[in-house]
């Protein structure tokens, strides 16, 4: 079926189902920020370079500026708002605070999501694999060491 105009789509964001009308040319980032008002997902480069629009799609980190809204049909999207009650996530937040891993804070949500993914999914998480894991996100305050330390502390 070729989708032409706006289509009603049921998407699961942070374990809540939303029925929204989306056009084929809207990205997941557009939907999250403009349609659902989820502003923890930041927008900057719009080309997959900076990584601060990263969300978890079916548990895997992906850059939402490079995902079309129609691709997320039947998928579950997670942003930091959906993890606030999660024990591991809370520990990671506290670790970020303790280590001073937040400077201006613009990239923090993306790093928290990727850190959470790494701790949950990678066995034998060492400093090098954390460095590689967060490689796709840019912190323009350049506070990488504190971010890496915060994730490493919870491995």
């Amino acid at each position: 079926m070729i989708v032409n105009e706006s289509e009603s789509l049921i998407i699961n964001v942070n374990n809540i189902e939303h029925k929204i009308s989306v056009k084929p040319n809207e990205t997941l980032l557009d939907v999250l920020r403009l349609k659902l008002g989820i502003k923890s997902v930041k927008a900057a480069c719009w080309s997959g370079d900076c990584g601060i629009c990263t969300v978890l799609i079916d548990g895997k980190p992906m850059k939402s500026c490079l995902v079309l809204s129609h691709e997320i049909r039947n998928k579950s999207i997670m942003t930091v708002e959906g993890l606030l009650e999660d024990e591991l996530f809370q520990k990671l937040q506290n670790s970020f605070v303790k280590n001073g891993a937040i400077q201006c804070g613009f990239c923090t949500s993306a790093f928290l999501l990727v850190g959470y993914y790494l701790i949950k999914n990678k066995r034998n998480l060492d400093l090098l694999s954390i460095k590689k894991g967060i490689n796709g996100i840019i912190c323009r305050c350049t506070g990488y060491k504190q971010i890496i330390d915060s994730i490493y502390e919870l491995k």
Partner: protein
Amino acid sequence: MNQISHLTLPEFKIVTPSTLREALSILDTNNTRSKLLAGGTDLLVDLRNRTINPNIIIDLKNIPELNELKQKGDIFVIGAAVPIADILKSKEVRKNFHSLYTALNEMCDEILRFRATIGGNLGTASPAADTAGPLLIHRARIIVASKKISREIPIQEFFIGVKQNCLMPNEIITAIHIPISTENEKSVFLKLKRNSEDLALIGVSAINYNSQTKLAFTAVAPIPILVDITAYISGNKRPNEEKFKEIWKLVKNAISPINDLRASREYRLHMTEILTRKALKEVLQK
């Protein structure tokens, strides 16, 4: 470069076929106005920059044939839409195609690897495509299908110019077939880049198998280049300086690096020579 000119994407229709047949039929009737979507890591950037303006986007991710990742006899099959992250998980790829594994493991970043695909990397046909060099030396074949026929293209015939490949407008890459060598095969991929996420300034791949030695070069010519240097190597041994100079002469004639914002032609030539020496050292014996 990455200067984004539009915050919205241009308008298009989208179609998500669940069978190859359906996708090929849609492509056949709309081939001049449609674009294929696999990982989207190039496509969405091109759309945003208005360098392309398709009527229809055909999302290929739900087609089973494009998602295969398995050994079939002495061939390893990588579906065109398999994300790089999944290919890296394959023990067979790691064991049999060392240079390809290295290239995939250094491509873009770990987050993009959940989306980026090998079919997309080849389809875009960038002169700097990281998978092209390893696939050239591993004698890969590109499997493509159209509504009427499917055919196999040896990878050395696939690239025809900067970001141009030999696909017809109604064809889709379905898979990459790589022969699994029973011989003691040694391969390597070396990449020069400015920082961890950057495009290759130079990519050098080398292989030694069954007394044959081949080199492949990316980002130093309009298309990825394969150079067979078997005639210059004896007994799987590293060439002496005199022989290396002959090899380098052959390579230098085959490549044509350019000056651009990433590096000068001279620097690229100089570093290609150094990486070629290093690559041969790794795949050949003392």
